[in-house]
C-alpha cells in the first residue's frame, strides 16, 4: 500500500515518469534484445557500410539508425549494448552497496578505531581520481565484462560507506536502538534490524543515481579499450569504433552516444524523483 503510493508519487513527477520509461526501455532491450533487434548485431555487410540514418540523404528504413564501418546495423547494436550497460551498472552498484553499506554500518555503529581505519581508507580511496583507479585496476585484472564489474564495484563503495556511516551515527543515538539492546539483541542484529531499515531509503536513492554513473564509467573504460571487449557490444566501445570516421560518418559514434546520454539522463531524473519521494532530506 505504502509502496504503491510511492510508485505513484514518483510517476507523477514528469522527470520521474520520463526516467521510468527510459529504464523500462533499457530493461526491455537488455532482456529481449535479440528478439527485438532487426539484425544480428555482429552481422557484417561490406556493401552497406556507413549508411546514414533513415532521415538523411542515402539513408534507408532498412537500417533506421544507419550502419557502421563494417556494415553492422547500429540500431541492433545499440539494443545489444543495453545489456552490457544494465549488467555492469546494476552488478557494480550492488557490489558497492554490499561493501559500502557494511563498512558504513560498522564504522558508524562501533566508532572508535574501526571507524577511523575505515574512514581513512575511504579518504585515501577518494584522493585517487576515480577513473585513474579504475584504469589501474582494469589493467591489472585485464579487460572483459566481469572484470569491468569488479573494477567499478571496487571503486565506488566509498559513497555508500560515507552516507551510511553518517546516518548510522545519528540513528544509533536514538532510543529505539537502546531499546533493542534492552531486548537483548547483539550488535549485529541491532544494526540489521534497527539501523539498516532507517538508512535504506537513502541507499536506494543513491544507488539509483550511482547506476548511471557506473554506466558512464563503463563506457569510458570501454572507450579506452579497458572495458568491454568484442564480441561483447558496449556503448563505450561503439563510440570508440566510431571515432575514426567522425568526420565522414558521425552517426556511428553519435548513435551510441545518444543512447548513453538518454539512459543516464533518464536514470538520474528517476533517481531525483525517487529521492523527493523517499528521502526529501538529502537534497
Amino acid at each position, binding site marked *: 500500500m505504502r509502496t504503491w503510493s510511492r510508485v505513484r508519487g514518483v510517476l507523477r513527477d514528469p522527470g520521474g515518469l520520463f526516467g521510468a520509461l527510459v529504464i523500462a526501455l533499457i530493461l526491455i532491450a537488455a532482456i529481449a534484445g535479440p528478439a527485438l533487434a532487426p539484425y544480428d548485431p555482429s552481422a557484417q555487410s561490406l556493401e552497406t557500410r556507413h549508411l546514414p540514418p533513415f532521415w538523411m540523404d542515402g539513408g534507408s528504413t532498412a537500417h533506421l539508425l544507419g550502419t557502421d564501418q563494417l556494415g553492422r546495423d547500429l540500431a541492433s547494436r545499440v539494443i545489444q549494448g543495453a545489456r552490457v550497460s544494465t549488467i555492469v551498472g546494476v552488478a557494480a552498484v550492488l557490489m558497492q552497496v554490499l561493501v559500502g553499506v557494511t563498512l558504513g554500518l560498522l564504522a558508524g555503529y562501533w566508532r572508535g578505531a574501526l571507524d577511523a581505519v575505515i574512514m581513512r581508507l575511504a579518504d585515501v580511496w577518494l584522493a585517487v581520481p576515480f577513473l585513474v583507479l579504475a584504469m589501474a585496476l582494469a589493467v591489472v585484472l585485464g579487460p572483459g565484462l566481469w572484470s569491468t564489474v569488479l573494477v567499478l564495484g571496487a571503486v565506488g563503495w566509498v559513497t555508500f560507506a560515507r552516507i551510511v556511516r553518517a546516518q548510522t551515527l545519528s540513528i544509533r543515538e536514538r532510543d529505539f536502538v*537502546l*531499546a533493542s539492546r534492552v531486548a*537483548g539483541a*547483539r550488535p549485529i542484529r541491532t544494526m540489521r534490524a*534497527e539501523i539498516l531499515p532507517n538508512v535504506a531509503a537513502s541507499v536506494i536513492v543513491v544507488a539509483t543515481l550511482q547506476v548511471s554513473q557506473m554506466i558512464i564509467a563503463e563506457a569510458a573504460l570501454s572507450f579506452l579499450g579497458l572495458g568491454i571487449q568484442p564480441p561483447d557490444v558496449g556503448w563505450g566501445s561503439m563510440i570508440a569504433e566510431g571515432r575514426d570516421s567522425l568526420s565522414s560518418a558521425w552517426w556511428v559514434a553519435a548513435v551510441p552516444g545518444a543512447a548513453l546520454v538518454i539512459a543516464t539522463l533518464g536514470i538520474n531524473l528517476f533517481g531525483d524523483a525517487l529521492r523527493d519521494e523517499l528521502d526529501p532530506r538529502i537534497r
Partner: protein
Amino acid sequence: MPRILEVTGLKKHFPHRSRNTLPWRPRTMVKSVDGVDLDLEVGETLAIVGESGSGKTTLARTVLKLYEPTAGRIVLDGADITEHSLRRMTPIRRNMQMVFQDPVGSLNPRAEVAAIVEEPLRVQGMRPAERRRRVAEMLELVGLNPGYGSRYPHEFSGGQRQRIAIARALSVDPKLVVLDEPVSALDVSIQAQIINLLVELRRELSMSYLFISHDLGVVRQIADRIAVMYLGRIVEEGARDDVLLAPKHPYTQALLSAVPIDNPALRGVRRRRVLAGDTPNPANPPTGCPFRTRCWLATDTCATTAPELLSVSPTQRVSCHVATEPPQTR
C-alpha cells in the same frame, strides 16, 4: 520480602575532555552516578526523583547494564550481573526491561508494531507462531486493538505509542521494569491513563518498578518508596509518605515546596523555598556535601565531610549532617 534488585556503591563516571584540554592532560570525569545504594523488593515501586542532570537516567541505564558501571555491584534476583558480558546479559534481559521517556524515539519508525513488540521475544528465541499469539495478547493487555500489529508507529498518538512500548517491555514477562520518565512526554490527561495502566499491570503481573521521574505528583500516585537524587547521589530515601510529608533533607524540602498546591485555601500556608544558583558542574562537584553550595543550613562541617546516608527512622534515610545530628549538639 525477597529482593529483586540490590545495588551497592554504584558509580558511573564518563570521561570528559573540555575543548581547551590538551590530549596528554588527564581527563576530568563527569561523575553522573557517584556511589548509589538501592534495593527493591519484589512487587515494589521505587521512584527516583531529582532534577535534570541529577543522574537519574544514567542510574537507570547503568542498572540495566546499558552502560558499564565504573564501580559497585548490581545484583538482580540474587545473581550478580555486574561483570556479565554482553553475551551473558542476553538471557538476563528477560527479567529486566525498560520503558523510555519519549515514545516517538523509542519505537523504530520503520518497523511494524508487531515487529516492535515481538523484538524481545525474538531475541529470547521464542518460536514465530507463539510470538504472534503473545504479541496479540500483549496489545490487548495494554488496551490496544490486537489487529494493530501491522501498522506503523506514526499512525498512533503519544499515549498509544507509550502503550506499545509498555507491551514490548512486558512481552517477556520481566520481573523488573525500569520506567524512565514514562509519562513526562505525554499530555496530562493521558498521563493518568498510563499511570493507572502501569499500576494495574504491576499488580496483575507481580513486577517491580524502578520509576524515574521529576514529577512529584506522578510519583505520589505510583511509588511505594522514593529516593531523591542530587548530583549523582541519593540524598534522601524512604517510604513515600515519609519523604513526601516529612522530608528531612533540605533539598527534598525545597523540591517539595515547588510543587503547586491545588487547594487555594492552603496557599500561602506553606513556605516556598527557592534555591539559589544552579546545580554544580558534575565534572567538578563541591567538596563535602554536594548540596552545600545551595543549602541554607550549611555549616563548616558540610564543606569538609561528605555526609552518609543514615537512618532517621526504620523507613527513612537521609544524607545530611544537619538533619542527622542530634538537635542539642547543633
